[in-house]
């Protein structure tokens, strides 16, 4: 509810007053105009010379923050579902539709989005503009691989784009970080599901090597895989243990369960903004040991509802506040296949010696499906996501050290999670950046695009 709250407080005389917007990591703020769009045909007159479409602002850094004094076009009321074709397994909706609402619509009908991230709190527009990936990347690729067409407001005109029509603009818009214009409507392919339940298995591992083995042996038969690794412990015995989680859809459910059960709606919220960081290192190692313990207990293996399986963090709506007023950084990199295991070993060593700890570390294999977007992040290899509390100057120093490993391996950083990568690391991560540049709509810019040099303020 955090983003909604900050809009509400500031909506008064929305045209003239500046609002302080923040994103999920809460390390960067932008003072900007806020304009809530209701209709795709609406003419928004910009009080400022630059704007940016934004969704739920679940990106961690500044890809979803407009320039200072720019205009945020809040797309969340563009949430109409325009067409649903169960035979063709295709849906068209406006770009502000939230995944939670999409799931409410699809699941009772026996369908699922082609790709879901670790939270159902994002919009379809955000899923396109960051070309998001999920636990099924190794089999199905990223969200953009399933998009059939997009309607875009680009240079003041409404344009259809698809792999056939305006294909270059289409490729620029998928993973395009909102810089090619306002995405109005999205048509994408769906996945059919036999029930709202999955069969899940948790398998403990004690080293990176065993993780890689497990991963290799699971990718074929398990459409959903992800791993959680304890790179937080200070004890060499515990450091590096983890749990490999795999799941598959199932129709085989006990008669006591409804085949298509909706997601539970009882979520907790943190009712205020804690003035201090609530996540301490001691609390963290306790948490990690507990999670490891419960995850290994047998009741975690077996039937599980899709909601806790895909969105375990959604049970506390605004857990990001627990990191306190300084916020936190997420660092997500991908290491290409050939260099992945050596890069991970180096990373493990750096992290063990580091003065601060990653509170939650996730490993996942990306498959070899070519992404659609010029700036798409996923590519064949292993991706790692680290959560660091913002403790100056240690956090930034540590991330710079990890940058070196990414550069050496020819890997990339994920803009959706980033608040500090350098222009040169961006260019190394996204070799197609110059192809992309031609499609930027000059009215659109973000703090991210200014920072890494795609646009100039």
């Amino acid at each position: 509810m955090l983003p909604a709250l900050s809009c509400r407080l500031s909506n008064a005389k929305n045209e003239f007053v500046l609002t302080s917007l923040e994103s999920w990591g809460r390390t960067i703020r932008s003072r900007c105009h806020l304009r809530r769009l209701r209709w795709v045909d609406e003419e928004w007159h910009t009080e400022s010379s630059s704007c940016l479409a934004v969704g739920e602002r679940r990106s961690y850094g500044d890809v979803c923050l407009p320039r200072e004094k720019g205009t945020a076009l809040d797309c969340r009321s563009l949430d109409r579902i325009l067409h649903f074709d169960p035979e063709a397994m295709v849906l068209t909706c406006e770009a502000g539709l939230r995944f939670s609402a999409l799931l409410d619509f699809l699941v009772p009908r026996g369908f699922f989005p082609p790709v879901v991230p670790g939270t159902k709190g994002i919009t379809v527009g955000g899923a396109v503009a960051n070309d998001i990936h999920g636990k099924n990347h190794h089999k199905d690729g990223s969200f953009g691989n399933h998009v059939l067409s997009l309607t875009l407001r680009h240079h003041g005109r409404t344009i259809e784009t698809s792999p056939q029509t305006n294909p270059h603009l289409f490729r620029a818009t998928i993973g395009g970080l909102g810089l090619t214009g306002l995405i109005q409507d999205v048509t994408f392919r769906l996945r059919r599901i036999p029930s709202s339940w999955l069969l899940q298995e948790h398998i403990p591992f004690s080293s990176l090597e065993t993780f890689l083995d497990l991963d290799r042996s699971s990718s074929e038969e398990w459409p959903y895989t992800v791993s959680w690794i304890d790179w937080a412990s200070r004890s060499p015995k515990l450091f590096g243990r983890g749990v490999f989680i795999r799941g598959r859809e199932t129709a085989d459910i006990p008669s006591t369960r409804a085949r298509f059960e909706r997601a539970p709606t009882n979520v907790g919220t943190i009712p205020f903004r804690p003035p201090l960081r609530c996540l301490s290192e001691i609390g963290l190692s306790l948490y990690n040991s507990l999670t490891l313990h419960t995850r290994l207990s047998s009741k975690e293996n077996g039937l599980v509802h899709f909601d806790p399986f895909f969105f375990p963090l959604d049970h506390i709506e605004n857990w990001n506040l627990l990191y306190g007023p300084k916020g936190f950084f997420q660092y997500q990199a991908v290491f290409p296949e050939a260099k992945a295991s050596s890069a991970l070993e180096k990373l493990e060593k750096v992290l063990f010696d580091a003065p601060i700890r990653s509170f939650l570390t996730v490993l996942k294999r990306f498959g070899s499906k070519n992404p659609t977007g010029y700036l798409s992040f996923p590519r064949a290899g292993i991706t790692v996501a680290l959560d660091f509390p913002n403790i100056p100057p240690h956090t930034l120093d540590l991330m710079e050290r990890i940058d070196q490993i990414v550069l050496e391996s020819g890997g990339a950083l994920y803009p959706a999670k980033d608040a500090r990568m350098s222009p040169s690391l961006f260019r190394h991560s996204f070799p197609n950046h110059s192809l992309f540049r031609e499609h930027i709509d000059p009215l659109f810019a973000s703090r991210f695009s200014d920072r890494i040099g795609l646009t100039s303020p």
Partner: protein
Amino acid sequence: MTDSSFPAEKGKRLFVCGATSAIALPVCRRLAADSASFFLVARNAQRLDRVAADLSTRGAARVETRCLDLTKTARHSDLVSEAFATFGEFDIAFLAHGILGDPSRVVEDPKEAEKVLQTNFTSAVSLLTLLANRFEKQRRGTIAVITSVAGDRGRKSNYVYGSAKAGLTVFLQGLRHRLHSAGVRVVAIKPGFILTPMTENLARKPLAVEPKQIAPDILRSFESGPEEVYTPWFWKPIMTAIRWIPEPLFKRLDL
């Protein structure tokens, strides 16, 4: 309320004016999920099409749309005839159209004031009269109209709009009286501040809520309970208190 001659498994049939309203949307969506059928009226064709598509995909059994500027009251008779010819009967007529008027002009420019009265009051009276004749004959159903807490007491910030809504509320009281014996519900829904395009540019919106937060109250009012509904509920005590303030004091307040 539901007549035995009306097959229960079929969804409700609704006649909706101001169908592109932000307040009406979550209400219609809920009913669409229960296979309701809709006859939708608003001015903007493109927007109306999007709402119609949204309701269809979410489960509406049937959606018809008509574009009309409802201040053209001469067209109302044809509109209502056409709607009843298409659907036979309606379970619910829901009037959600309205404008606030340009706040800086409406107090000084009689033309702007007239537009506010025509949209919020005159057009509604014309439609309601035609609808009442039909509902009286079908002897069942609900006529529900969005008025406003602004009609409870005139204030300098929006008294033109407020007077139109006050007139409408009194009109609905009379209509309720008339249609009671025919078994027709006549509901006046009085929202407080709701975050919609209508209030987008207001400087002050105390206690404002999203449309979907008041949708359950509106849906309930279609079926049963009081026929004058404040929503959210806390506007009832607030407006009671505001009505009680003596005029000499009220004049001095900055409300």
